[in-house]
């Protein structure tokens, strides 16, 4: 007897208006109960669009979705939920200002005589939270780690009886250890009869942790096969690029000192975020700032670019003290910055591609004259930039929000690197990117060594090893250790070193 698939997608297609981007051309997929399914594909292949359609957030232009063999139409996420389909977003959709408990029950608060009953709420979540080994309930969500937030979203889904769990790049913000735990959790969900579908870029993980793999390419499903019958090489080839790992070149260190940070301390309220940090950075160096969670590595970059005011200490760039300069003045000296949150900080999603691309140069000659912009020059500038960085789009005047996630990332990196900064400050420059673009970013950073230096903050050990010459290990705002690249071979070593609070 063949089992009826829990969720089946037949020939679904979707075109976005007014851009005319054909996000999905022909997608076929079937999900069985009690399996974990991995969805792979390059950036812009349509993975996110597909899961958003399955969750009822977008409506397909054609094709069929079947639940238990019966055709269904989802007009909104509520419809999808009523069939037991839940989506956990890449950028988690929680209300930071509310507590865990309030978030879990948002919109479905258990009532006793018109008043929200916390006691009832607690009883209801007890089982689910135990299964997910979640302990916090009264903490405000903004104080939690990404891994915990993700669990809360999963808890939400399970509480309203989700049978199909869709996860959009669940590992993007997790470190190795948290990732391990997540996959364990997914396996236990599978054993209880759920169907799980997760999006990932990591072919290794997809093959190791899933029962079945589906590969998408340019809006089509091109491969769907049981994981055990596939090799990494096969999958990578169907995804549409060559899976070569970058060969690392030992850099020629010896340039002059560009950045000197001494005794930098940052307090936010009573919390010591950075504790007496000192180091120097020379031309040609790429240094990684590694911490398992938010251990101060991102705050250090924000302090150097001028977003946060240090309580004490000095920052000297190119022999000039910049500790008290404005962000604009620092950027003008040749500092570029890629913030952690691309959607909220690195892009103006209400603007056009052009407006987003020129934000660092619009007031410089020759682009501005007597307070007026010369749009034709700016357009040419943007055009050249996008060409060099291979960002695909129809027109620079189109709204930036219709670009795919991968293209947005490229746009951000292109904008910061195109002006050839002498110091690049970047948070997780390759997170959420497929191998092709990761290699590409690494190449760009290598090119940068000839004229500048970079600080990369991340909690992804592999990223550190791929990009950096030296790694500074941060823990709770303190610089604990400095490790040379030659002495580091495996990501696991870095993680265990960072976890060791010696």
């Amino acid at each position, binding site marked *: 007897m063949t089992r009826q698939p829990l969720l089946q997608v037949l020939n679904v297609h979707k075109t*976005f*208006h*007014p851009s005319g*981007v054909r*996000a999905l051309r022909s997608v076929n997929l079937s999900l069985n109960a009690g399996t974990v399914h991995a969805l792979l594909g390059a950036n812009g292949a349509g993975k*996110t*669009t597909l899961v958003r359609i399955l969750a009822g957030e977008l409506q397909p232009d054609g094709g069929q979705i079947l639940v238990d063999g019966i055709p269904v139409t989802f007009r909104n996420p509520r419809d999808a939920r009523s069939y037991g389909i839940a989506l956990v977003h890449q950028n988690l959709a929680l209300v930071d200002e509310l507590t865990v408990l309030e978030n879990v029950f948002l919109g479905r608060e258990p009532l006793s005589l018109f008043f929200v009953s916390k006691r009832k709420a607690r009883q209801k979540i007890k089982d689910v939270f135990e299964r997910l080994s979640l302990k916090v309930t009264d903490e405000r969500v903004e104080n939690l780690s990404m891994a915990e937030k993700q669990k809360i979203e999963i808890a939400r889904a399970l509480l309203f009886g989700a049978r199909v769990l869709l996860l959009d790049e669940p590992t993007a913000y997790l470190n190795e250890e948290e990732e391990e735990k997540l996959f364990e959790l997914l396996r236990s969900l599978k054993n209880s009869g759920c169907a799980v579908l997760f999006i990932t870029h990591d072919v290794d993980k997809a093959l190791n942790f899933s029962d079945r793999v589906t590969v998408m390419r340019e809006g089509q499903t091109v491969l769907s096969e049981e994981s055990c019958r596939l090799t990494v090489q096969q999958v990578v080839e169907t995804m549409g690029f060559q899976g070569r790992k970058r060969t690392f070149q030992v850099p020629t260190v010896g340039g002059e000192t560009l950045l000197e940070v001494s005794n930098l301390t940052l307090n936010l309220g009573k919390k010591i975020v950075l504790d007496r940090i000192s180091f120097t950075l020379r031309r040609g160096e790429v240094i990684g700032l590694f911490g398992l969670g938010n251990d101060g590595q991102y705050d250090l970059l924000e302090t150097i*670019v001028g*977003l946060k005011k240090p309580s004490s200490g000095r920052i000297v760039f190119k022999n000039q003290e910049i500790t008290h300069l*404005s*962000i*604009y003045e*620092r*950027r*003008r000296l040749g500092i570029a*910055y890629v*913030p952690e949150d691309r959607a*909220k*900080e*690195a*892009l*103006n*999603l*209400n*603007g056009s591609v052009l*407006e987003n691309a020129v*934000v*660092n140069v*619009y*007031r410089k000659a020759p682009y*501005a004259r007597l*307070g*007026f*912009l010369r*749009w034709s020059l700016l357009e040419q500038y943007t055009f050249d930039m996008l060409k060099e960085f291979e960002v695909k789009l129809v027109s620079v005047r189109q709204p930036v*929000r*219709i*670009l*795919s*996630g991968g293209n*947005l990332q490229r746009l951000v990196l292109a904008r910061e690197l195109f002006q050839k900064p002498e110091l690049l400050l970047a948070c997780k420059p390759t997170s959420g990117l497929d191998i092709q673009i990761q290699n590409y970013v690494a190449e760009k950073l290598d090119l940068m060594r000839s004229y500048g230096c970079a600080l990369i903050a991340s909690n992804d050990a592999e990223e550190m090893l791929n990009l950096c010459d030296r790694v500074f290990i941060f823990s709770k705002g303190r610089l604990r250790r400095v490790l040379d690249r030659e002495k580091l071979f495996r990501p696991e070593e870095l993680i265990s070193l960072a976890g060791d609070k010696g």
Partner: protein
Amino acid sequence: MRSLRILSSIVTVAVAFGASAAILCLVSPEPRETLWWFFVGPFSNVYFFGNMLASSVPLIFTGLAACVAFSAGAFNLGLEGQYYFGAIVGTIAALNFSNATVSRFVALVVSASAGALLSFVPALLKVKFSFNELIGTYMVGQIFVYVGDYLLNGPFRDPSAAFSATRYLNENVRLTRILPPSSLHVGYLIGIMLCFLFYFLYRYSTLGYEFRTVRGNPRFAKIHGINVDKILLIAMSLSGALAALGGMIDVLGVHGRAVKGFSHGSGFIGIAASLLASNDPSLIFLSALFLAYLDSGAEIASLMVQTPPEIARFVQGIVLCMVTAQFFLERRELDADSTA
């Protein structure tokens, strides 16, 4: 997208017409007569037509003022106070000078500065202490409406006038009339020129780009070196100055002196004018004209047939509801159409 926006503005206008016609039919003893005066009256002779254009002038200025604040992502709800108080202070200052050119110049500069100050203070409170600018601008505006009333009632009241008002400005200080016998004056042309000037600045100046970027995402603007606080202060001061100039020009062009209550809610209707033009400065003189048309129609109808002039306010209310709804509808469309 642009054509869709224009279409929805047309629908708004059509519904407003329909609703006002229906209400007129209900409340008027002679519906046909009333409808005719309401809709055709403003075009029936030069006098009515010119007066309608003249009454759109304050709305052009307050509409632009609202638009300037919106375009930097800020809200200025104190337009009424800035318009009223600015014009009163400007008039009082101008009364001290006998030379026409100097007097006119002083009137404009003093009123604009007073208006700018009234919106600058709440903006500064927002920037320094994160005061809510909606409440700040509104409260300061309302307070200065009453301060203006006090000035007209007390120290600067013309003793020979029957009601609270200043002395008349000299005839040669007033703005040139361009369509006698109506009260249309050169301020109308200045208003239209300002509309296009601001459109041009918004699209082509570095400051306009900064306004748009701050509106789009203030955090993004800050990270990329734009001084967000400075932009907010500039936008708010400019907004207040424009509103006050509107009041001053109305005094110089139509009233000839500051009269208690002359603002007639122009400040608040300016917000509607800006929204109706989907915050596009180059369209504001049209939306102001539309709102002035409804007002004039009601006034003429009440003059000719006994219809309550408040009917125009009712219709303006409907228009305001519709443009706000439209505003939020667009927002939703944008959100729904995003991909990644």
